[in-house]
């Protein structure tokens, strides 16, 4: 057992850190640090920078344009990205559709899609969730009926993150409504968002922004060559994806960066004779969160070490903790930030259309409350905390 990274791993970390610091555009860095989110352009620019370096897809094998890193390198990269306020590589392209195409797609699909996925010159979004399905993803109703060389797609997707930015969407659609189990009869289709019959309706979220959308399909005609793998096997491909994201889900690096910011900002907020950081009760809350975050980090490293050695074939039991506890910690930190900002949580200037007035209160203040509201989602999306607890109870504890 050894907590230290090897000399090579440290050198790699320094290389990544230096690259990020030297290449991440300053505007993007500031927006990330202040929790303001990034524009489409921020992401596309950053993906281009990473892709030029060959780093836009940290987990991809070399043959498809990835850097061919091992698990520890992937981890170090992710950690440095988050610690240095850089955006994670565009997830729908890099973590979701790319791996499905290079694993289950045919050569034509690989050739056609992978390059523009890698540098994000084509932006992908995910069409899995449907209204009313919630955690029961497999109950999806969007239909694709084969007519000659085309599928005709009808139905509705929801919670589609950044559909408003997307050029293409990867969808789960029902191709066999009579299959004996609902998980069967689902196919995995790639659809050009410019195809006639697709409508995107933005959903405003409680933070005041628009991250998610409804996507409607009204007789949308999709060439059969856009089917990935076999018809009716789409659920397997989706499941492969769902298991694909375990380590990053804890978002330890991002939480570290944010906790650092809590301390920095608290030291700038006057209270009594000194600052909020002089308040021992406030500090105790910060230290408690830091200890929990360290415990989460160590848990993440245990899982990583297991993957590095055993290849992650069988998920480490502790990996089920990562999402659940990671969400909790991320949310606690947004609440700590609310405690820091105090009354200046109240004004809403960020995201108010047409407003170019200065922020009420300190510059950084206007992103705090939206951040607190927005982060309620982390225990809901991607397998809610209730779903995670159910998985632990059943799959690990055998209850």
């Amino acid at each position, binding site marked *: 057992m050894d907590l230290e990274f090897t000399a090579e791993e440290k050198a790699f970390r320094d290389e990544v850190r230096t690259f990020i610091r030297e290449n991440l555009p300053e505007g993007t860095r500031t927006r990330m640090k202040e929790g303001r989110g990034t524009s489409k352009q921020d992401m596309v620019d950053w993906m281009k920078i990473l892709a030029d370096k060959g780093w836009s897809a940290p987990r991809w094998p070399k043959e498809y344009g990835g850097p061919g890193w091992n698990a520890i390198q992937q981890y170090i990269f992710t950690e440095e990205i988050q610690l240095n306020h850089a955006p994670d590589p565009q997830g729908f392209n890099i973590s979701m559709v790319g791996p499905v195409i290079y694993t289950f797609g045919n050569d034509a699909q690989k050739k056609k899609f992978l390059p523009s996925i890698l540098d994000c010159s084509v932006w992908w979004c995910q069409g899995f969730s449907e209204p*009313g399905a919630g955690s029961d993803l497999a109950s999806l109703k969007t239909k694709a009926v084969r007519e000659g060389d085309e599928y005709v797609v009808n139905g509705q997707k929801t919670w589609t993150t950044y559909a408003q930015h997307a050029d293409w969407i990867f969808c789960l659609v029902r191709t066999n409504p009579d299959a004996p189990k609902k998980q069967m009869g689902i196919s995995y289709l790639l659809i050009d968002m410019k195809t006639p019959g697709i409508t995107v309706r933005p959903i*405003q979220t*409680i933070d005041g922004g628009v991250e998610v959308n409804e996507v409607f399909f009204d007789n949308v005609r999709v060439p059969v060559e856009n089917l990935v793998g076999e018809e009716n096997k789409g659920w397997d491909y989706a499941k492969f994806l769902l298991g694909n994201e375990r380590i990053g889900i804890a978002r330890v690096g991002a939480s570290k960066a944010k906790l650092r910011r809590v301390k920095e900002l608290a030291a700038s907020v006057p209270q009594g004779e000194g600052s909020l950081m002089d308040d021992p009760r406030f500090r105790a809350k910060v230290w408690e969160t830091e200890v929990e975050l360290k415990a989460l980090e160590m848990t993440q490293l245990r899982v990583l070490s297991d993957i590095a050695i055993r290849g992650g074939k069988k998920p480490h039991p502790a990996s089920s903790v990562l999402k659940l506890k990671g969400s909790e910690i991320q949310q606690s930190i947004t609440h700590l930030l609310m405690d820091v900002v105090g*009354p200046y949580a*109240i004004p*809403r200037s960020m995201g*108010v259309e047409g407003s170019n007035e200065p922020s009420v*209160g300190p510059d950084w203040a206007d992103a705090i409350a939206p951040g607190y*509201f927005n982060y309620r989602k982390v225990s809901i999306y991607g397998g809610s905390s209730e779903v995670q607890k159910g998985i632990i109870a059943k799959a690990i504890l055998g209850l």
Partner: protein
Amino acid sequence: MDFELSEEQQLLKDMVGRFMQDRYDFEKRKKYMAEPGGFSEEIWAAYAEQGLLAVPFAEEDGGIGGGPVDLMIVMEEMGKALALEPYLSTVVIGGSILRTTATPAQRSALAEEIIGGACKLAFAHSEPKARYELAHVETKAAKSGDGYTLDGAKTLVMYGGVADKLIVSARVSGATTDEAGVGLFLVDPKADGVAIRDYPTQDGLRAAEVTLTGAAAELLGDTPDSMAAIRQASDEAIAALCAEAAGALGKSLDLTVQYIKDREQFGRAIGSFQGLQFQASEMFVELELARSMMMYGAMASRDADPVERSRAVSAAKVQLGRSAKQLGEKSIQLHGGVGMTMEYSIGHYFKRLSIIDRTFGDTDHHLAQLDAVGGMAA
């Protein structure tokens, strides 16, 4: 010892409840929010008609002489509907300051206007560096002829952009956080030297930054020494906010329970899962504790002893803050994705609750206030 509403109070509660139900559903509220001032002038006029603007004012001033429990009743019902209007600043805070500070002449003149719906007040007290410290007043008042002129900056003035009159605190003497030497003044928002920047707040209400540059002002009362009155008004405002929060919490639980009853997943109502039931039960516990402390805060908010009064009001604010966090966060969680959207009402309740927690001192601030007086001294 009696926790029952009187007959009149029960009538008041029924009346306000019915009014809000008829006139203030979620869809209507969206329209009111889009009006120029960020609330409904028509509803304000209706409040006046229903006598709601008269609640705390003395009968001799045309009011109905209601006490803090009456205001609690109104605020709780308004909390259930997430009412937008400047009732807190005009009626609760205004009512308190008129009672404690104004001369009889000022009181009866203003009360008449308020009660009739012709005058909305804003309380311009907080300053940019004050955080939650009430005695932090840098704005200066200087005698000028019969009146005063004011110079300084006020922040987070709720509905400062629509008020017909501002009640402004300013210092005639003493250092920035001294108790002595702070007066309360009436300022016409349209007067020279008054600059107002109006903006929306996170919960869909409105606030304003107010800058005063030699602005003409009329002293409220006879002497510019009103910190005690400001503390009294603040305690009444907190008690009222606790009632508003309790109303919003009650509605949040109702919405959540209804949602998990209706929503089906894996072929059954998600409310039939024990894991969710337990969470709903924990929300209920938080709600009842919040309601209890709402009553405690209201009953104590006019206590003659300022230490005991503030102790009780701080305790109420701590409990409401805690309940708001626990119940509010669970209400979104149990709604799942739809709870994250502006299209469902639950998120609006959650945001209002989060902002109430930051208004007139957050949970940590009021714990510190309790610490300063040795806790609940139970």
